[in-house]
């Protein structure tokens, strides 16, 4: 057994960024504390974030041997709904390591990117960064769906501050879209978690048994989880937040969004597929069939995502938007790999190998590209491809490092992207060869097409930014990026090359993850290392590159890039139309409802008016009767007309033995009750109408009315007191009858 301290590692790692965030916040909130003075300086803040990210990365590296030796590190904290359970296994550790590296680089980059930023906003950026980091680490070290949801929700909500960081109108719009989709996705995950829980699951390592009676519920649960995580992963149809948000966010934050946070979505889908909805060989036919369908859905969803993403990327004119759509496309690769893995079932290890490797690889080169483009934007002042160009000579270091990233993503052999794409390609090939008539051969063709498109899109980016002639004064006067930015690009570039040359570095972690899911891990190393020596793979990659170059040149020659995408095809527009329709329907329904309630209120007001008139009439009648009755016979009249007061009064009258003074009080009493009643009715009527009006009044109107009416109102509030007394009296009578009834 491991020492408990080792098992608590995931917890300590999650706590690290939170402690740093608390320190930063404390330093800002308590300006008198000397000890925290260094953190208040801009440099101190930058340094703290970088050091935290590095420390977390080192801690994670240190945890690798323990995880490999024992499979998982587990710890449970009593909190929330019982216990929050954390479990760090190889898959989580892989994503966490990627996150640590990207976060370190991005924070370093941010220290230069945010150099001119106000202090408050820099602080907000750093706090957001640390909280999202902690949330992400929670996601990847969660052992059950509740803990996962906890991290996922905070990851999504906190990253909102990244999107709106610049405060521009575009950022606000992007933020709104991001938030709506994130919240909807979060609720989908929550629904899925609830459903899985009610089906008896919840642990991310335990498959959910298929109960034939509730198999629909199981499907719904899987769909909810896929949709919820799909939003974050940028899966087709749910990806619309992604281009806007990535473009609006500061470049280092875009690198985090694209490099790591999208992976949280993919990670969630992977956990869904390998946890609750895993179908082991002995799971029964129904469960196996459900799993196969699930795999097929994810596979096709991935293919559609990667194809649409790359086409959209080709059409973009802003460097960050192009990269964002490319991210959508690349996440499609990951989804495709996972779908193929599930579809292949027992033989799916190769799909998982490709998907996990691609998660890491894409995280590395896409972060590198976003940081590089961020450096360009800092120097040249714009991200529009039209106003850039010719920066290769002005920013040689940045160019070289970005080129490594581009080479990685388009799949140049000896770099990392080539490896993972080839493995995913093999997985699709196997799935197609398995061929149960699901058109997977077409999926394989589309995969190849996407690879070509990726090459074309990234060539467009490189050519637009670094080659040709500068398109603006900003680009003409650009100089090399600050040292910190270039330094931040370096580790990512090194990692891209290293994982290209030595892809089997990933093999132990991937193998350990596969073993955790009961899949064979023996061939992982071979799958990862073979593409470099495999002739078909090499030739396919070369051909794709050549075709990509041809596509790019042709598209430029024939002005395809100048075309805009037809508006009717915009998902945003469709969503907006739908939202407007819903809003209109609601407004219409509300109109009807308002009409009904206004009518009802008027009926109420009419009723109070009628009450007022009746009570006034009754009062007059009473007064007339009282006036008409000779004084000596008052008590008889009272007992006849005002029954409620008669019972008590006649005794009093008899006791007084015909005293005229006592008799004389009766008309007055009756009159005062009558007056009170009509005053109450009057007040009720007026106030009811006032209440009808007050919904439409402004504060000023209310103020004015208040001044005018205070005196009158204070007089009338006595009437309300009287009314309350009346009702209480009626109750006392009713309670008395209750007592009488119970006595019988």
């Amino acid at each position, binding site marked *: 057994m491991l020492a408990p301290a080792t098992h608590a590692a995931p917890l300590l790692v999650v706590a690290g960024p939170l402690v740093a965030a608390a320190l930063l916040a404390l330093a800002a909130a308590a300006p008198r504390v000397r000890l925290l003075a260094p953190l208040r300086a801009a440099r101190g803040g930058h340094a703290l974030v970088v050091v935290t990210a590095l420390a977390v990365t080192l801690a994670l590296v240190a945890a690798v041997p323990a995880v490999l030796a024992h499979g998982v590190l587990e710890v449970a904290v009593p909190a929330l709904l019982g*216990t929050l359970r954390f479990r760090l296994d190889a898959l989580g550790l892989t994503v966490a390591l990627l996150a640590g590296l990207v976060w370190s680089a991005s924070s370093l980059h941010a220290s230069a990117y945010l150099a001119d930023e106000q202090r408050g906003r820099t602080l907000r950026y750093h706090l957001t960064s640390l909280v999202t980091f902690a949330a992400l680490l929670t996601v990847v070290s969660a052992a059950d769906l509740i803990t996962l949801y906890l991290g996922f929700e905070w990851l999504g909500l906190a990253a909102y501050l990244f999107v709106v960081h610049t*405060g521009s109108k575009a950022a606000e719009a992007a933020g709104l879209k991001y938030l709506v989709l994130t*919240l909807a996705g979060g609720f989908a995950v929550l629904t899925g978690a609830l459903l899985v829980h009610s089906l008896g699951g919840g642990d991310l390592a335990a498959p959910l048994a298929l109960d034939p009676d509730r198999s629909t519920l199981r499907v719904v649960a899987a769909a909810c989880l896929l949709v919820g995580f799909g939003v974050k992963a940028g899966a087709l149809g749910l990806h619309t937040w992604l281009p806007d948000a990535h473009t609006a966010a500061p470049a280092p934050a875009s690198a985090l969004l694209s490099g790591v946070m999208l992976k949280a979505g993919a990670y969630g889908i992977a956990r869904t597929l390998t946890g609750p909805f895993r179908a082991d060989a002995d799971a029964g036919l129904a469960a196996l069939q459900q799993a196969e369908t699930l795999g097929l859905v994810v596979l096709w969803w991935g293919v559609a995502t990667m194809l649409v993403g790359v086409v959209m990327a080709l059409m973009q004119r802003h460097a960050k938007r192009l990269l964002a759509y490319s991210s959508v496309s690349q996440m499609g690769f990951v989804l495709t790999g996972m779908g193929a893995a599930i579809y292949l079932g027992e033989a799916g290890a190769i799909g998982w190998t490709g998907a996990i490797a691609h998660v890491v690889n894409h995280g590395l080169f896409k972060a590198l590209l976003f940081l590089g483009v961020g450096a360009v934007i800092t120097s040249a002042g714009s991200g529009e491809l039209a106003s850039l160009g010719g920066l290769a000579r002005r920013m040689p270091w940045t160019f070289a490092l970005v080129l490594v990233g581009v080479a990685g993503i388009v799949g140049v052999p000896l770099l990392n992207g080539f490896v993972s794409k080839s493995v995913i390609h093999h997985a699709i090939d196997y799935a197609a060869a398995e061929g149960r008539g699901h058109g997977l051969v077409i999926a394989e063709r589309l995969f190849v097409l996407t690879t070509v498109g990726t090459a074309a899109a990234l060539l467009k980016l490189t050519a637009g930014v670094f080659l040709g002639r500068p398109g603006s004064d900003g680009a003409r006067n650009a100089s090399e990026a600050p040292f910190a930015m270039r330094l931040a690009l370096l580790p990512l570039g090194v990692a891209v090359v290293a994982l290209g040359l030595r892809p089997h570095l990933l093999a132990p972690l991937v193998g350990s993850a596969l073993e955790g899911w009961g899949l064979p891990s023996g061939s992982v190393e071979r799958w990862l290392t073979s593409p470099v020596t495999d002739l078909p793979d090499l030739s396919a990659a070369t051909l794709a590159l050549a075709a990509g170059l041809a596509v790019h040149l042709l598209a430029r020659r024939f002005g395809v890039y100048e075309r805009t995408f037809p508006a009717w095809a915009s998902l945003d527009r469709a969503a907006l139309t739908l939202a407007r329709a819903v809003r209109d329907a609601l407004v219409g329904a509300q109109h009807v409802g308002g009409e009904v309630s206004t009518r009802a209120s008027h009926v109420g007001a009419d009723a109070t008016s009628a009450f007022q008139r009746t009570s006034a009439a009754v009062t007059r009648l009473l007064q007339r009767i009282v006036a008409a009755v000779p004084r000596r016979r008052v008590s008889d009249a009272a007992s006849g007309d005002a029954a409620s007061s008669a019972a008590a009064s006649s005794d009093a009258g008899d006791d007084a033995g015909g005293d005229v003074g006592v008799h004389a009080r009766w008309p007055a009493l009756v009159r005062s009750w009558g007056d009170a009643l009509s005053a109450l009715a009057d007040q009720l009527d007026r106030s009811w109408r006032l209440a009808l009006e007050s919904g439409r009044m402004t504060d000023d109107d209310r103020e004015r009315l208040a001044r005018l009416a205070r005196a009158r109102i204070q007089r009338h509030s006595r009437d309300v007191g009287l009314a309350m007394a009346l009702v209480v009296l009626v109750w006392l009578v009713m309670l008395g009858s209750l007592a009488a009834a*119970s006595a019988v």
Partner: protein
Amino acid sequence: MTATAALLLVALLAPLAAALATLGWPEPTPPGRLVPSGLRWRRAAMLAAGAVTAVCTLALAALVQRGETHTLSLLQLTPHTWLTLRVDAAGALYAATAAVLWLLALVYAVGYLHGPRLGRVHAALMVCLAAAIGVAYAGNLLTFFVFYELLSVLTYVLVVHDETPAALAAGLKYIVYVLFGGSLVLAGVLLTFALAGDLSFTVGGVFAADASANALRVAFACFALGFGVKAALMPLHGWVADAHPAAPAPCSALLSGVLVAAGGFGLVRVCFEVFGVATLHSLGVMPWLGAAAAVTIVVAALLALQQDDLKRRLAYSTVSQMGYLTLALALLGPIATAGALVHLVHHAFLKGTLFFCAGSFAHATGRRGMGSLAGLAARTPVTAAAFTLATLGMIGVPPLSGFVSKWWLGVGMLESSAPATLALLLIGALLAAGYLLPVVFTLYFAKGVTRPPGVAPKPGVATRSFEVEHRPPLLVAITVAAALTLVLGMAASAAGFPLALARQAAATFFGGG
């Protein structure tokens, strides 16, 4: 006399004593003094009584968890019915919630309520507290009714405190609605007595098996409509949206957290201890109640979206959230019921925080519209942070308390095989995000609305907000309430927390414990 009985009596009598005492200290300010000396003593007495009550109710809750229950008959009302107090899990839960929220509201009120008519509102606050405690610990239907009506009627004083026309109109609307509801409840009580001859709270119901189903349905309708008025069940919710904005902020918090909840609590008592689960199943009335609750959840949330006055927005939010409670009750499942009870508690503190913050904002700007909140976070950072936390709690973001109750409600709904209601729960939560998050954005990100460009800042505005964030009572109440949101969430499953009591109560109602 046992310790339980002593605690019960102290919890009930301490506020009453304070109410009497508040009448004793004179109001007028001696020359040369800012705060009337009498006022200072009166506030001390109020806070002391509030604290004593809170401690007693918490102690009683702890005792209940150890399995102790106690019944204490005080006074014979009729030959068959006594004024009886009793401590059980559900009652202890509601009492502790009411007392702790009340204490926070009293602290807040010390910093918030100024000006004339203080004596009246202070006395009303204390008597209302006693009434709420009475409602919680009522041992039979008649006792419940007496305290419930006392609470309802006296709340009028809290609603009309400002005596503006809007407040008085809202007060009148309130009293008409509540007296109407109260009369229906009374009719229900009388019918119950006529049908069963017994008004005690009995798990499993008091009615004989051969009682006429239609008569029982009528009785249930009386209770449902009567308590529905208080629990803001649509279409009986009309008073809520007017009374909350009209009342001063601490009273709005109490209206939402304790008063509206009293209606829900009444429904709990009636459903499980007057009718009983089996009877309700056979009567088939619960789907109707559930349908009304479903409409309430969605429609009230949609209405909340459109309100410009922050307190009106929060009031409609309360209507929507109380719909959850009724909906969960209507499902008649043990987990759903536990979820409903724990939601009652968590919602009270969340909404309390929100109303406290709304009061501070209104105080800082002198206005209530959403526009006046623009960029206010920079001037009231603590209040804005608390508001944000409570907003996230209302949406149900873990690890805040709102998530815990939503989770239990969700699990309960699925356990009762009603997955469709789960959609309602989530739509409600999504709409909650829709009507509360814009407020947060306005606080933090909106700019330039409060002051048109080129106009110099009004000198008064800055000093006012300065004053608000430097009024310790307001800040203390807000921070403690917001901290409770986090603590109740993080430690939800710990022994002695609301969830444990709610589960105990639900187990009792369903005959398991």
